[in-house]
């Protein structure tokens, strides 16, 4: 946080006093009296300043400068509330009085009070080039969770944060939330520059670089950790190798990580992921089974192994694993969903639906289960006007309301709207799904159909081009995903 230290408070005070001495439209006090108060403030003799201010304010109660000086003195004494009252009085007399704005903003900021936000905004309207004001506003907006508003102020704060890792973290977090991964990576590099030997900083930077699809850069970031690696660094390194299409190195690195930290759940999940991506399901099952031996209570491992069993068409084993995952962590949605999906995979949509509905009875507000209920009903051929269709529509709407980022649910909802002839709502859902995932081919296709059916042709040519590009990219990615096969105890390229 940009919390002002005591030393810094003194500097701020001196700076404020300097400003206070400047001319003021609402100032009535003779210069001699002001001069004495200023000297007291500058020498940080706040009790003397207050003693001089009380009679002066009785004589000149409409003098904004005196109120601001009193606020500064109270702040110096540590009487924040009195200080704030004084600054507020000054601002009532002179709303744009800079010293009062600065003083009030500082006190509210120190308390992480969002009340500082409008004060800082007013201050920045008066002084747009104020890195400190931007910095304070950025941090406050971040604290309020308003990354969209925070980011422009982080940008305008410039180098002010270069020595503050926590602020750089906040800035990078906001950028990640906004999916500006490349920018986030650049910001976080400034944090790593502050602490180049800090392993954690490097891991976080590497994680951001992976999100920015910069696996080579992530490998470079992690390089200094490789002499004496920990499991987390190795895990990230493995991901970077995989993203660089160096699967053999990825698998070897993951195996090292597992040896180093055999009770690290995440490592087995990563292995399951890579095995699945490379059509190497049995190896995945074997390694995840090792993980289960180490961590017999880890629900995600049963879930992951169940998924791998599905790919091997070993449905009984998959079902047993999904059941174990559900029993170990009944609150977890995925295992419940997996049970339904398993039935769907076996082309038994009735059972898939009944499984999901049974789970929904216990968890009626589970977005994932609601989405699947809608999807299964749709796949079963629910037609507009039927109770099944209405249930699908309600479920999809609820899923989207509960979890707006659940792209699949939006896609199902859009499809239901298309079937019902409600093209405007279909288009809206598609746009939202695409805002979340611009690579969502289904949403894009439904958007094209929705626009065509509602007679809105203008956008369609560009959307068709985007769809063609997405298809091409998907085919390319699919081909590359399967370039390697993971085998037991070694890796080889096929």
């Amino acid at each position, binding site marked *: 946080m940009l919390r002002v230290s005591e030393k810094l408070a003194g500097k701020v005070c001196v700076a404020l006093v300097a400003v206070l001495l400047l001319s003021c439209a609402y100032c009535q006090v003779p210069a001699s009296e002001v001069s004495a108060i200023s000297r007291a403030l500058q020498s940080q003799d706040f009790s003397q300043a207050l003693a001089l201010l009380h009679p002066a304010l009785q004589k000149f109660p409409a003098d904004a400068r005196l109120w601001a000086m009193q606020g500064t003195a109270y702040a110096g004494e540590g009487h924040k509330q009195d200080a704030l009252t004084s600054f507020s009085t000054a601002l009532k007399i002179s709303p744009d009085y800079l010293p009062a704005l600065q003083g009030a903003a500082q006190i509210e900021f120190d308390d992480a009070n969002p009340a500082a936000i409008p004060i800082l905004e007013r201050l920045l309207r008066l002084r747009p080039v104020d890195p400190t004001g931007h910095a304070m506003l950025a941090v406050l907006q971040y604290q309020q969770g308003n990354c969209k508003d925070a980011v422009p102020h982080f940008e305008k704060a410039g180098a002010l944060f270069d020595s503050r890792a926590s602020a750089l973290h906040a800035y990078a977090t906001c950028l990640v939330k906004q999916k500006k991964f490349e920018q986030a990576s650049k910001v976080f590099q400034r944090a790593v520059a502050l602490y180049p030997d800090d392993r954690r900083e490097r891991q976080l930077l590497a994680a951001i670089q992976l999100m920015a699809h910069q696996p080579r850069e992530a490998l470079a970031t992690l390089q200094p950790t490789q002499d004496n690696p920990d499991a987390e660094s190795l895990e990230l390194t493995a991901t970077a190798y995989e993203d660089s299409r160096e699967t053999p190195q990825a698998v070897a690195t993951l195996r090292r990580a597992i040896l180093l930290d055999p009770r690290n759940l995440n490592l087995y999940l990563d292995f399951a992921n890579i095995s699945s991506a490379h059509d190497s399901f049995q190896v995945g099952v074997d390694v995840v089974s090792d993980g289960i031996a180490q961590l017999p209570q880890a629900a995600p491992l049963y879930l992951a192994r169940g998924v791998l069993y599905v790919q091997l068409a070993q449905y009984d084993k998959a079902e047993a694993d999904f059941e174990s995952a559900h029993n170990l962590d009944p609150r977890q949605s995925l295992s419940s969903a997996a049970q339904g*999906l398993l039935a769907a995979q076996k082309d038994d949509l009735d059972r898939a639906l009944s499984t999901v509905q049974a789970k929904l009875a216990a968890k009626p507000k589970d977005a994932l289960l609601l989405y699947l209920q809608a999807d299964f009903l749709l796949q079963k051929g629910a037609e507009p006007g039927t109770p099944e269709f209405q249930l699908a529509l309600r479920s999809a709407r609820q899923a989207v309301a509960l979890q707006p980022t659940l792209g699949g649910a939006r896609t199902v909802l859009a499809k239901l709207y298309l079937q019902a002839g409600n093209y405007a709502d279909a288009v809206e859902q598609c746009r939202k799904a695409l805002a979340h995932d611009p690579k969502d081919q*289904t949403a894009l296709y439904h958007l094209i159909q929705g626009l065509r059916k509602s007679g809105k042709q203008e956008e369609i040519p560009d959307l068709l081009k985007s769809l063609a590009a997405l298809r091409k990219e998907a085919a390319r990615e699919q*081909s590359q995903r399967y370039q390697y096969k993971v085998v037991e105890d070694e890796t080889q390229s096929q």
Partner: protein
Amino acid sequence: MPLTRRSFVQLSIGSMLSTSAGRLLAQGVSPHKAQSMARPPASGRPFNAHFVDIASAAGLRAPVIYGGVENKKYILESTGCGCAFFDYDNDGWIDIFLLCGTRLGGDPPEATNRLYKNNRDGTFTDVTEKSGLGAVGWASGVCVGDYNNDGFEDLFCTYFGQNRLYRNNGDGTFTDVTKAVGLWNDQPRWGAGCSFVDYNRDGHLDLFVSNYVRFSFEHAPVPGENSNCNWKGVPVECGPRGLPTGRHSLYRNNGDGTFTDVSQQAGIAKATESYGMTVVAADFDEDGWPDIFVACDSTPSLLFMNNHDGTFREEGVVRGVSLSDDGMEQAGMGVGVGDYDLDGHLDLFKTHFAEDANGLYHNDGKGNFDDVTRAARIGVETRYICWGAGIVDLDNDGHPDIFMVTGNVYPEVERKLPQYPNKTPRAVFRNLGNRIFEELGQEAGPAVTEPHCSRGCAFGDFDNDGDVDILIVNLNEPPSLLRNDLKGKQNWIKVKLEGVKSNRSAIGARVLVRYGGKVQSQAMLSQSSFYSSNDPRLHFGLGAAGSADIEVYWPNGFHEKLKGIPANQLVTVREGAGIVPSRGWASKK
């Protein structure tokens, strides 16, 4: 800082589970997967069509050679070929033309295309040698049309290598005129689907040819070589993904017996990224000009809309007939054209790979399609790789049904994965009359459930008994000839068209038949199903209706109406002259 990688891993697991994630296995064909729908209880309604395979008894005993029997090294060996029901000698009885492939190790003696003359008694005589149609090679598709308007149907056959145009000499013989008419390719190509079509309405049949992949033995990868050469983890032939796409061609008929390649100027050449297969040409938007639909494998299917000026615009995706209803590529192979819901418009049915649903697309009459696969309950069947298909009224109840043939492309897979056999049954979807279909098995006769590795099929009435029979190409086996032993007393009418100003074959004509309060549309096609050509006599089941009104939209724009035509007859309509005497029916034994 809330940056953990766990959420990403979980998301990944989630996507593995996602219903829309598709198949997770690498393969050379589109990985689109559709969950099979639950089968509703049987309707219990009797089905009067009953199919019996009489091929052997009818004299169709020669196998259709096509690639390896136990293994296929190249995709060239597995796509197979089509067949035609056509009346080459104008005797009013439908004859049979069967394409054939060969083998990598050399041409077996029985490997040749074959022409069988209809003996008018339920049997056929092999007249290949006399006809001049014998040829060995990797044949793909056949399309039929009278390109020189001399009154005899000609044949165009596509091949890996050189396509062939056979001019019908009218005396039971054919002449290969490919070079002479300007259809010779300087470089070998893999011709796939084809269709005669009078795209510029000058009365002369032009020719559209789809090309599948650019293939050469020298450069083709072999099973297991890369990610496109595996299926379910089993090394198999590679492709089509990973192989260069074909280029499609449009040849304009110059009216003097020659053709000119107009692919560039017509806008066809712009479509460069598709693995084209079956081609159908019909007026889908009912503007009087023929459009062209190309089923494409593992790439978006193509719908070329006619601009009326000699050019086309490709609009398959936006018109809803290129991709699955979730916007994904499918392995489009065969195409049926018909009016399943009796609204007077031409709908499309497209066959796909196993574990995906075949697609039924409803046409709004303006060439805009909606995928109604699930609503129509076609989605109950996803087990088989499906090829030739038709929207045809099998039981003459007045509601067009759907028939398709199936067969694997990887014969080696069944040895490791018995759940994916090489030979699989046919599929019949009977139309229940409420836009919903019901899949039938044994109820439609023993020939429906017999497993074969089939490809093309053609629909027609070879025995002139007023129903639809089916000719089927089976790879490395003799063909099947499914005789329809229809029970009951449902009525029917057949319409044969003879163009005068329009092309003689009347290809591109649209016929509306009104009966019993219903209206059904059919199109005169040069190719449909899979690489095949149907009996040119359009067959309409009429149910209980004793008569029908017929409207013909001729290719050149002439619109003709015929009122109150009695049922149970073949009606031959000559453009501008109305009904003229039919050939064949009177001479039925």
